[in-house]
């Protein structure tokens, strides 16, 4: 019967605050990789998650793209699902009641083809009991403006974020596209337009060619790259955004374990989202949370917030 040092007795604080939303730990699921939660409920207790971010929703249901929709790449995967989803109404009626039983905030990811569709979806979701925050996917083309992707043009992005800000009182997270020259600028635009937080990165556009057929492998030709291959880019972008905005950052991009999550937190993310790793290991989120706790204990830290933005650069 030895004496346990104090630091091992204390359970470090893992809770973080994102725009008034209190998360019991900083580990959430990335939209599109966790279905509507129920797909993974037989593998883990959803109450242990920091937040559940559900598959992107639109005002009307979407069939999505033809197949092949996914292809594996070195340390990553390309996907072109085409935003297949059941629509906001069906989500609220059929999926949200299940999610309410867990003590975990639900963040509804949503998108539209036009500013009006964004506003409409945001309004419907905001009125649903059990939706705790909204995450805007702005990596979609705007059909009213020559199919310019909202999230790659500062002006278009400013318009859509400003419009959605007026349509909801819920915490509003803007999910940034990495397919831009200056992600810091885009984050700043989102902040000025009223975003409560930014999440990054969405997938990086890529292509794989079948050399025998001389055709792209994906039916959609291009797809979004995710997985460990994108992680260094994502960490760099989180760091760049952290330097220029005051609002909280949710970092994501190829997080497979606690060490990866820590890179994001140290670079300035207040929370992280786990995406592709769920496919490989359905309990990845839980293992990462445990790993964060272990790291804090090992480092003699009592609060995860001490880690956030603790990156040292220069001499």
């Amino acid at each position, binding site marked *: 019967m030895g004496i346990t040092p104090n630091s091992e007795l204390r359970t470090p604080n893992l809770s973080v605050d994102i725009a008034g939303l209190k998360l019991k730990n900083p580990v959430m699921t990335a939209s599109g990789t966790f279905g509507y939660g129920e*797909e993974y409920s037989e*593998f883990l207790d959803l109450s242990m998650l920091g937040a559940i971010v559900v598959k992107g929703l639109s005002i*009307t249901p979407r069939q999505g793209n033809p*197949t092949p929709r*996914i292809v*594996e790449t*070195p340390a990553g995967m390309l996907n072109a699902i085409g935003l*297949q989803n059941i629509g906001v109404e069906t989500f609220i009626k059929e999926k949200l009641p299940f999610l309410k039983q867990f003590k975990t905030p639900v963040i509804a990811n949503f998108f539209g083809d036009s500013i009006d569709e964004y506003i409409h979806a945001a309004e419907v979701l905001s009125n649903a009991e059990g939706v705790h925050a909204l995450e805007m996917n702005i990596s979609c083309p705007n059909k009213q403006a020559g199919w310019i992707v909202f999230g790659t043009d500062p002006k278009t992005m400013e318009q859509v974020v400003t419009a959605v800000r007026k349509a909801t009182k819920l915490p509003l997270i803007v999910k940034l596209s990495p397919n831009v020259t200056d992600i810091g600028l885009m984050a700043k635009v989102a902040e000025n337009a009223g975003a409560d937080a930014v999440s990054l990165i969405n997938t990086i556009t890529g292509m794989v060619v079948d050399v025998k057929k001389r055709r792209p492998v994906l039916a959609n030709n291009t797809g979004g790259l995710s997985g460990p291959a994108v992680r260094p880019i994502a960490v760099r972008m989180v760091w760049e955004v952290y330097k220029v905005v005051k609002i909280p950052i949710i970092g994501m991009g190829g997080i497979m374990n606690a060490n990866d999550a820590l890179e994001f937190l140290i670079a300035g993310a207040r929370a992280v989202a786990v995406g592709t790793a769920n*496919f490989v*290991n359905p309990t990845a989120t839980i293992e990462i949370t445990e790993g964060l706790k272990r790291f804090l204990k090992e480092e003699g830290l009592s609060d995860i917030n001490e880690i956030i933005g603790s990156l040292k650069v220069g001499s």
Partner: protein
Amino acid sequence: MSKYFKAKTVDNFSLNKHFSLLNLSPLSDIDIPQPGQFYMLQAGDTCDPLLKRPFSIFRYEDNLLSFLYRIRGKGTLSLSRLKSGDIINVIGPLGNSYPVPDGDFIALAGGIGIASLLPLLDRFKNRAYLFYGARNKEELVMIDAAKGISKETFITTDDGSEGKKGLITDSLIDFLNPSRITHHASRIYACGPTPMLKELHRIIKSQIQNPKSQIIECYVSMEEHMACGVGACLGCVVKVRGQETVDSSQKWIYKRVCKEGPVFDIKDIIWE
């Protein structure tokens, strides 16, 4: 019981130039797999290959999970390097299963498709008319095992190196000819390459239109690129007819091979 568990490699060996067999011993209690179900497997938690690959359960005996596989890419190549004693993470059993046959039935296997059908033949011994086609003799794997548990076996190879030379679907057409019926099978179960399944669909359509035919149902196991295996990524969809369409103007919806499948009624699939 969790569908995500650790399993120990008991052995992993080549059956011939093309096929190998992997035997895994689960390290915790698992759900009993049903014929047609599958598992997501990967040799270790590597970043490359990153994703697990789906494999049909080939045999479940004495709490040993067996998988028949063919080395085709990075995933199966790394799987082939697993050694006795290696522990890996497994997800499964996943997906639906073949509906229980009523009486005798027909099983149509193309190549490695035999892996998915063998548990069905084994569960319902000596009730299957097995139609098994492959490119050549070497690619007819587990043929003796399959013969031993089938009522009757019909074999074709593309090059005639074993069985009849030609397509297995042509042998099936002969067998189903209503003027020469010698069987009481009303259901077909199939697993194999898409061209074979498309031809089967054509055969079934003409069978159903023929009042003398006794074939009334056909179930096929589908394949698609898959990332998660549990219904989350929406990568592995197929076009399916049905009432539950997203809007009334749509005649079809996408269903997930991993969740609503892999076994579908052949009439429900939209073959393009």
